């Protein structure tokens, strides 16, 4: 159970729409101990008034409907109940939610791109619901940029036999603060894949979670991050297997360089009593490129059933391998280029999984830009 004193399942049992159900974090809580609260600009303690803006712009596939709805819309908050203080703050503070619906059995002809642009003028709160009806298929891109202090919740509701692929880019300006929950709820035989790319921002804390409402669900969650000096990039994954015969696979990889570059990865997987036949694996790998950078990586697996198909986790954090560099240099490739080849290879193996070519290329060139620093 590692550093946690309590079982995972109890750590994750608290969720509520009501802000008052969550104490203001002090930093001593298991959920908050890695996050520098002083850099949250008040998102965690109620002092961040919603005086700023993050503009939501949707370039949608023609087959989907896009709606901007009020707080009382019945579809909001259906799949996800806030699981921590900032999430509850966001849930209680957003003004309008964006609801995107992919109708039953529709296969979208192109990706739907949601661009969220911070205007740098104070805190903002948001809510997005992406509903993929039974047997439908869609690709959704969330593209975060600009300067913002932003807390939001995103619900992915994936219907029976539906398929949803999500790419979420956190390409924020250097001063941005972003705390976000991405929750996917998978119905029977639903397939969900998420690809998270976090590069920009002063502090990004993204918590992707998955729950299942029927058997046969399959979640694949990948992430790539590149942490520079003074950045805090935190990813907290939770996969809650409560239904039989579902799968989950988590693979997050990051590179860190510079003084006080800090990556945090928490990978929690719970396999509950009813979740027989679960097949799950989670992996986090960090490449520490310089002194002064730090990666905290904590995989946690709690298995409450005797009948799993597979369950494993691994976490590695280390330097570039001297043998790799030697081999490349022994073929005349200069050190800096050899280093870039290896890092590009390490992250590129994951980035290759992004199916939308334009996004894949953008992510690759963003990584190139990081490597050129």
């Amino acid at each position, binding site marked *: 159970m590692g550093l946690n004193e309590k079982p995972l399942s109890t750590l994750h049992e608290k969720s509520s729409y009501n802000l008052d159900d969550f104490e203001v974090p002090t930093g001593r809580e298991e959920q908050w101990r890695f996050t520098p609260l002083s850099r949250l600009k008040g998102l965690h303690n109620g002092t961040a008034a919603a005086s700023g803006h993050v503009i939501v712009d949707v370039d949608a596939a023609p087959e989907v409907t896009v709606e901007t709805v009020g707080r009382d819309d019945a579809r909001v908050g259906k799949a996800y109940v806030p699981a921590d203080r900032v999430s509850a703050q966001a849930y209680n503070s957003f003004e309008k939610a964006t609801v995107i619906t992919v109708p039953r059995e529709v296969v979208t002809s192109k990706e739907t791109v949601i661009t969220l642009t911070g205007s740098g003028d104070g805190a903002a709160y948001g809510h997005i619901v992406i509903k993929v009806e039974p047997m439908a298929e869609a690709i959704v891109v969330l593209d975060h940029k600009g300067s913002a202090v932003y807390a939001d919740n995103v619900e992915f509701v994936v219907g029976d036999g539906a398929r949803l692929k999500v790419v979420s880019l956190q390409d924020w300006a250097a001063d941005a603060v972003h705390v976000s929950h991405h929750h996917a709820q998978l119905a029977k035989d639903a397939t969900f894949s998420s690809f998270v790319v976090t590069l920009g921002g002063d502090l990004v804390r993204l918590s992707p979670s998955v729950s299942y409402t029927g058997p046969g669900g399959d979640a694949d969650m990948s992430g790539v991050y590149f942490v520079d000096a003074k950045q805090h990039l935190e990813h907290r994954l939770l996969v809650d297997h409560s239904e039989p015969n579902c799968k989950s696979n988590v693979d997050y990889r990051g590179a860190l360089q510079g003084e006080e570059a800090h990556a945090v990865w928490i990978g929690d997987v719970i396999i509950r009593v009813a979740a027989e036949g679960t097949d799950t694996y989670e992996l986090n790998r960090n490449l520490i490129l310089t002194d002064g950078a730090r990666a905290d990586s904590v995989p946690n697996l709690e298995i409450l059933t005797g009948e799993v198909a597979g369950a494993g986790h691994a976490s590695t954090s280390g330097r570039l391998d001297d043998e790799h560099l*030697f*081999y490349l*240099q*022994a*073929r*005349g*490739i200069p050190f800096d280029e*050899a280093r870039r080849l290896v890092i590009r*290879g390490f992250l590129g193996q994951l980035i290759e999984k992004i199916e939308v070519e334009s996004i894949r290329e953008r992510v690759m060139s963003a990584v190139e830009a990081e490597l050129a620093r």
Partner: protein
Amino acid sequence: MSTLEIRDLKVAVEDKEILRGVNLTVKSGETHAIMGPNGSGKSTLAYAIAGHPKYTITGGQVLLDGVDLLELTVDERARAGLFLAMQYPVEVPGVSVSNFLRSAVTAIRGEAPKLREFAKDLKGGMDALAIDAAFAQRNLNEGFSGGEKKRHEILQLELLKPKIAVLDETDSGLDVDALRVVSEGINRFRESGETGVLLITHYTRILRYVKPDFVHVFAAGKIVEEGGPELADKLEAEGYEAYTKAAV
């Protein structure tokens, strides 16, 4: 015309002295075989010349055409014309063979090869070594069999055309067919007469395909006997026992 001159080379690994004064000169047009029992320091010699960070030079010089290689970084040595085919080629995840080879050729030649020309050279080289075309897209050495790794080392040798090639047990672990293919590659490389080869091996088998001009017996970190090809025949018949006993 190139010359690799190893002068009284002494090398330690983790404070343990391994090479105890090696002297050897390899000129272009010549093939030298270094033969010795396991653990005698053959790979240490190869790695030390190439500049592997684990090996500490405690004395001596290695000159390539008068330039002291020991003063150069690993990649500078390669660009100066040195090549090391490794006994255990390293697997590098995420770096494709074609990308790696293009980077290496670009670095060695000092300019990027024309794409079409490179594709042709690569295909020709792979065909000659019976390497499946699909290898170009695979990750460097990852999941390659022992024989595939060795053929891939020789492919690099042929593409990079160094002045001096050090081949560390390129023959070990190969079946007869693969040994012949690899030997033919080495012979193509030698053909021009403008390159020198230092062929490190444990067995005499490869020397039937790649004929050496000189044979050096290596034991306990130094050369203990030298001669022509006939010395290999003697080793074949008698083994290393006489040398290992004498060296200790």
